[in-house]
């Protein structure tokens, strides 16, 4: 009964991403889209929190959104997987349900 959590808010701007991390369960997946993708970058004030969550959750980032904001894939935290819209669809199919953190 794993859940896909979809986050679209920058972790530097709103509390939504942190709230998501606080409510995702072990074995869940987290997908960063839109402005949330900047949270995938390593070496930020947010990256330690995200790395801690990766201990028992899978984390994905929508590549097109990351690139749009000028952040290249070689800057993101090790272990975060980059997906495109097709991969986004697959994640929603592979997880039994989704929750959007707006």
């Amino acid at each position, binding site marked *: 009964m794993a859940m896909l959590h979809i986050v679209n808010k920058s972790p530097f701007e709103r509390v939504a991403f942190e709230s998501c991390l606080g409510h995702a369960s072990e074995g869940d997946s987290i997908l960063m889209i839109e402005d949330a993708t900047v949270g995938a970058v390593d070496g930020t004030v947010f990256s330690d929190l995200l790395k801690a969550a990766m201990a028992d959750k899978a984390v994905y980032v929508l590549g097109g959104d990351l690139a749009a904001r000028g952040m290249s894939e070689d800057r993101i935290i090790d272990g975060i997987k980059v997906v495109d819209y097709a991969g986004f669809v697959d994640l929603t199919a592979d997880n039994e349900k989704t929750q959007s953190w*707006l």
Partner: protein
Amino acid sequence: MAIKKFMYVNRKAPYGTVYALESLEVVLIAAAFDQDVSLAFLDDGVYQIAKGQDTTGIGQKNFSATYRALGDYDINKIFVEQESLDARGMTADDLMPLVYEDEDDDWAEKPSISIVSRTEMAAIMAKQDVTFSF
């Protein structure tokens, strides 16, 4: 068709944006569908069910009384996160006393609100089939 668990997640303050009001409108409609309905209030969403809301100064309709009617619609699983209250200097006493009449217990009036920890809220969220966020 099997009954699904629907959760309505409310994380935003009322009146500053329309989400609280229009979320409530969905919940009222949802009551007619005989599904399993839960409401979650966390982060700034806890202000939605704060008692004493008075909108006379801002020209918007005060819709907080509608939450009190939820019990009549058999919507009585309302979860409020303790950590969200704490951060905002609030306690359970600051919330409207939302209640319902339990038909399995001689229509005794019971509280609809459960104050839960963040960990408990996470576990409740994990059990849902459909989650609507506003």
